[in-house]
């Protein structure tokens, strides 16, 4: 089979999985949908590997293949096709997405087993993977927008998967609305770019970018800013990030798959894919770099203080994606994409471990009520520590190479980007602190009741099912979480999935060791062959070594500080919090982003909506338009009705009068 066949198979497998699971929803025996879904994604992963080998067989210059299934429209000036672009970047993304998705499906098979919406869950999950693969394989802007919107819809469906939980449905709506803002940005950006280039096809647009646009051309900058708005909304960058922490209302595998490993990295992919445009519009790229940097610091400070286990990881995700956005916007593409991959491994692993802990806590996500799970859940603890070390950037775990490569490349830009790299180092110190704060608080210390139960061999169950966020009482029927909980220690498939990711989180970094193995850099070269920075932007050996050294010191220092604060002197965090009360409450309230957005945007819009409903609608629409029209019609018909007296003689007289007038007219006109 050729590259093109593999390309289409990557897409068709998850789509087929979704259709088969949904159509047979009533037929499948218990547990079957999970395995069908997993098999579909595994087939997609196998096709990605096939595509990788087929791509490697081609010559260096030919590794950008466009395959067209059909034309949607081929009118003058619009080239809307169903086309896939198969190049190293899209295959790299397809491999990452389908690979991690396979493991997360495998994890969900056990984790979601007692949930009444099991079939629906896997149909949604397969649909999500299909959308994400469509997004990364799309060969033109049109298909990209379709994939982009599908991914947003799948995210909405999965966040509000427990649809009888009001907090979950609200979070779903919030995510969807913010994602639609991003969609609008993407569509507008596409419009501005299409205006200049006259083509929707990626390669045609990129090849002609220097003829179509002058450097920093207004239209191009506007277009790239539009694309950035899309990227920021999807990748949860400031100020469009507030949906991501709320999205943790979804089931934990969803958080692992969508809100850590794949969907939120779509923005990074978008900027990397559009690199010829951003290099021609450096102003827009600078905006991306600065916003990425701001996000990584802001999110890290919030992660230091939140007490919800999953939200700590969610803010960490935002922060890490900030690194990636900063990297690709500073034209350090390999570094950004490398971190995307390693992050997918260790963040999915962290979420899976967190899911296991939450299951052991019977759904409770509050860090304040956790502690001492180390002996009860040794496997989960091990995975969490591996993920944590990779996230903090401790050598030789994968995050060490990828994060420090980003910072070295950004610093190598040699202008104000150095300041961004400096903030990035601050961020990596914070990363180590918040990661190990989470781990120490959940696993060390005195065992809480669920941990003690587990040590004696039985899983803790809450006396009644409640919503962990609000305490509302729930049942276990469809629309709410199922009755049972499943932890990695007792479930083979969860263990396998976490084990694979743990191994990847350890060894993933060896793909791209500076100066030793630059596999990824060479692999991605054909995609970035037209980039002015890909080969030229390279940190000196000294800078790389300094970066690696500083990164190690900061990571170990952060872990030591976290150990000191939360293990050795358990009273210290409390007194520190009291001393820094204003700072703590500022961070704890998430920099008041929700409140600011509420005041600046939501309230005025709500006021405008109420004005529209109560005043404009009542007076202008109902009063003037509807009332005016009915009034006029009513008055006119009353006049006509008055003429219909029903007297036969009256009609006859009118008839006679009419005929007489007509006759008189012709007589007079004729004479």
């Amino acid at each position, binding site marked *: 089979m050729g590259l093109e066949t593999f390309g289409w198979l990557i897409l068709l497998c998850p789509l087929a999985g979704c259709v088969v699971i949904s159509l047979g929803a009533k037929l499948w025996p218990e547990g079957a949908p999970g395995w069908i879904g997993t098999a579909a994604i595994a087939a997609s992963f196998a096709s990605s590997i096939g595509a990788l080998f087929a791509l490697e067989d081609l010559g260096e210059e030919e590794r950008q293949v466009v395959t067209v299934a059909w034309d949607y429209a081929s009118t003058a000036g619009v080239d809307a096709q169903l086309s896939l672009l198969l190049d190293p970047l899209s295959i790299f993304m397809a491999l990452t997405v389908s690979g991690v998705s396979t493991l997360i499906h495998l994890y969900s098979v056990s984790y979601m087993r007692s949930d009444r919406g099991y079939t629906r869950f896997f149909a949604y999950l397969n649909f999500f993977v299909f959308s994400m693969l469509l997004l990364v394989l799309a060969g033109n802007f049109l298909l990209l927008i379709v994939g982009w919107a599908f991914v947003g819809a799948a995210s909405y469906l999965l966040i509000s998967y427990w649809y009888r939980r009001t907090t979950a449905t609200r979070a779903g709506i919030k995510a969807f609305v913010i994602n639609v803002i991003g969609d609008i940005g993407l569509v507008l950006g596409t419009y501005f770019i299409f205006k200049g280039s006259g083509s929707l096809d990626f390669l045609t647009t990129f090849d002609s970018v220097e003829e179509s646009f002058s450097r920093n051309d207004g239209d191009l900058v506007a277009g790239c800013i539009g694309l950035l708005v899309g990227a920021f909304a999807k990748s949860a960058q400031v100020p469009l990030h507030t949906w991501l922490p709320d999205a943790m209302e979804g089931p934990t595998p969803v958080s692992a798959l969508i809100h850590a490993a794949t969907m939120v990295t779509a923005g990074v992919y978008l900027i990397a894919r559009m690199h010829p445009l951003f290099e021609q519009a450096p102003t827009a790229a600078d905006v991306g770099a600065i916003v990425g940097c701001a996000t990584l610091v802001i999110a890290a400070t919030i992660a230091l203080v939140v007490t919800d286990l999953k939200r700590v990881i969610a803010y960490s995700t935002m922060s890490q994606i900030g690194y990636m956005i900063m990297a690709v916007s500073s034209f350090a593409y390999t570094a950004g994409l490398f971190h995307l991959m390693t992050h997918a491994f260790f963040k999915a692993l962290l979420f899976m471990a967190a899911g296991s802990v939450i299951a052991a806590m019977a759904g409770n996500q509050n860090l304040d009520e956790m502690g001492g799970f180390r002996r009860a859940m040794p496997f989960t603890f091990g995975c969490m520590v591996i993920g944590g070390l990779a996230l903090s950037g401790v050598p030789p775990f994968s995050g060490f190479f990828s994060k420090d490569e980003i910072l070295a490349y950004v610093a190598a830009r040699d202008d104000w980007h150095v300041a961004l790299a400096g903030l990035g180092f601050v961020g990596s110190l914070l990363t180590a602190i918040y990661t190990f704060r989470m781990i120490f608080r959940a696993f060390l210390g005195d065992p809480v009741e669920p941990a003690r139960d587990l040590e004696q061999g039985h899983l803790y169950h809450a006396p009644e099912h409640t919503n962990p966020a609000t305490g509302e009482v729930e049942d276990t029927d469809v629309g709410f979480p199922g009755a049972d909980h499943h932890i990695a220690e007792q479930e083979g498939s969860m263990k396998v999935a976490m084990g694979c990711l743990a191994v990847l989180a350890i060894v993933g970094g060896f793909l791209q060791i500076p100066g030793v193995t630059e596999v990824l850099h060479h692999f991605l070269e054909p995609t970035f062959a037209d980039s002015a920075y890909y080969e030229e932007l390279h940190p000196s050996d000294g800078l790389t070594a300094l970066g690696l050294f500083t990164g190690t010191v900061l990571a170990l220092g952060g872990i030591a500080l976290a150990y000191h604060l939360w293990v050795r002197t358990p009273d210290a965090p409390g007194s520190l919090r009291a001393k820094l009360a204003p700072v703590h409450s500022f961070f704890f309230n998430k920099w008041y982003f929700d409140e600011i957005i509420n005041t600046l945007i939501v309230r005025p819009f709500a006021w405008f909506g109420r004005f529209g409903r109560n005043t404009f609608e009542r007076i202008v629409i109902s009063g003037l338009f509807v009332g005016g029209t009915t009034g006029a019609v009513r008055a006119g018909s009353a006049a006509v009705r008055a003429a*219909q007296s029903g*007297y036969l003689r009256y009609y006859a007289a009118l008839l006679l009068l009419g005929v007489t007038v007509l006759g008189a007219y012709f007589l007079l006109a004729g004479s």
Partner: protein
Amino acid sequence: MSITWYLCVSAIVFCTGVGGVLTRRNPLVVLLSLELMLNAANLALVAFARAHGNQEGQIFALIVMVVAACEVAVGLGLIVALYRRRLPIDVDELRELQG
């Protein structure tokens, strides 16, 4: 004899018919008056045909008679139906079609 006299007679008969239609309330008389109007028109047609010396007007008059016969059949049928249902035989009372 000049055609004028024929036309004068026709006009007088027509006006009599119109007056009957407009003033009488008994549907039977209204129908009679209608017949008068039709026959006045017939008279004018025949007179013109004679004056111009061709037969078409005569044929037209015959057709009008046929139509008048049909109309009378329908009209009388209606009046009989009204009578059978004991409705008032008065066109002013029959005004259900008012707006």
